[in-house]
């Protein structure tokens, strides 16, 4: 092999190293596998208070992640928060009387949406709305309640 070919080979290997690093960063370090997952559908849920819920938060059923929050907005007429939830088609179909609550992972963890399935025969479809929701527990309110109760006694 002459010198030019060796140089070309090394440059080729350099390029390969860069691309390999990109692949490692994509699939090992970051969550791109979330983005390329299968089809799903979007449902809405109105909450009195979403707490610290942010887009990309997990949607879980029985503790298993089945989707993610894609958008949180204010309904300006009802003064409620509207969360749009993306649910993977891989998950089981959800009955229409499914309820949604906002939980916190651990004490300081991020908020996520927990779904509890109901018993209805009909299932939620794309664009449907979850009627039964429970707002996020706000720690300050809880403490306030507690103080108020102990004072009243």
């Amino acid at each position, binding site marked *: 092999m002459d010198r030019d070919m060796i*140089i070309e080979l090394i440059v080729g290997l350099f390029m390969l190293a860069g691309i390999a690093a990109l692949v490692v960063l994509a699939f090992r370090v970051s969550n791109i596998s979330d983005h390329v997952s299968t089809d799903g559908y979007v449902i809405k849920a109105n909450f009195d208070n979403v707490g610290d819920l942010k887009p990309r938060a997990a949607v879980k059923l029985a503790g298993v992640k089945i989707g993610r929050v894609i958008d949180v907005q204010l309904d300006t007429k009802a003064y409620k928060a509207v969360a749009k939830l993306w649910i993977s088609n891989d998950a089981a179909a959800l009955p229409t009387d499914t309820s949604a609550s906002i939980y916190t992972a651990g004490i300081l963890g991020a908020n996520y949406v927990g779904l509890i399935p109901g018993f209805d025969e009909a299932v939620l479809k794309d664009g449907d709305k979850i009627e039964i929701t429970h707002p996020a527990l706000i720690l300050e309110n809880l403490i306030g309640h507690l103080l108020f109760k102990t004072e009243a006694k």
Partner: protein
Amino acid sequence: MRRNIVLELGHRGVHYGISLGRSGIFLWQTVIRWPQPTRSFPLLIQQIYSVGAMSLSIIMLSALFIGAVVALQGFNTLEKFSAEQELGQLLALSVVRELGPVVAALLYAGRSCSALTAEIGLMKATEQLDSLDMMGVDPLHFVVAPRFWAGFISLPMLVLVFDAMAIFGGYLIGVEWLGVDQGSFWNNMQSSVDFHIDVMSGFYKGVVFAIVTTWIAVYQGFAALPTAEGVGRATTRTVVYASLAVLGLDFILTAVMLGGW
């Protein structure tokens, strides 16, 4: 006396303005000379080899140490809150967003940009550029453009390699040595690092740094005084300006990216 200071300031201002404008024109003239596939492709390969592939070893070694140090420091702090399983997240975010592009660009400025300036400056001092011109070969096309494009291609690649190696270094220290649980290390990392937001923003930073540092390097070489001293000064200026440009631009880019781009 006071008039002299004012004069001097004005003179310098005009001087810097002129050289900035000149370097802008120079950049434009270089950019439009994208290497033609058949004729100058070997030149480009040659330059990627010396600018990029030869920097691989220093980049990988530095990345390993940077990752190791971030893991060590992070572990010591996180341990106080018994949150050491968040080490993966801390390591990946700080490396991918900031340390990767910035440190890789600084190393690149020190290792490759200085060499580019010295090489082009010496070509000018020994009148090689003039001879090329006389032979009817455009030195911008033949000398400057391949080097510029080689830098443009190489630095983003180096940034990616740096990111991966630094995370590997942090993994070695965090998981293998300090005993952070392997599953939570990778899992926390994956759940908090977004490919489009975090990894790609670091990559774009690398692209911007590549353009600016290589531009500074080739321009300083091309505009160097054709003496031994002039080449030396131009090389110093390249490293100083390129490093400052990287750090300053990093602040601006971070502000833009975090401010909901």
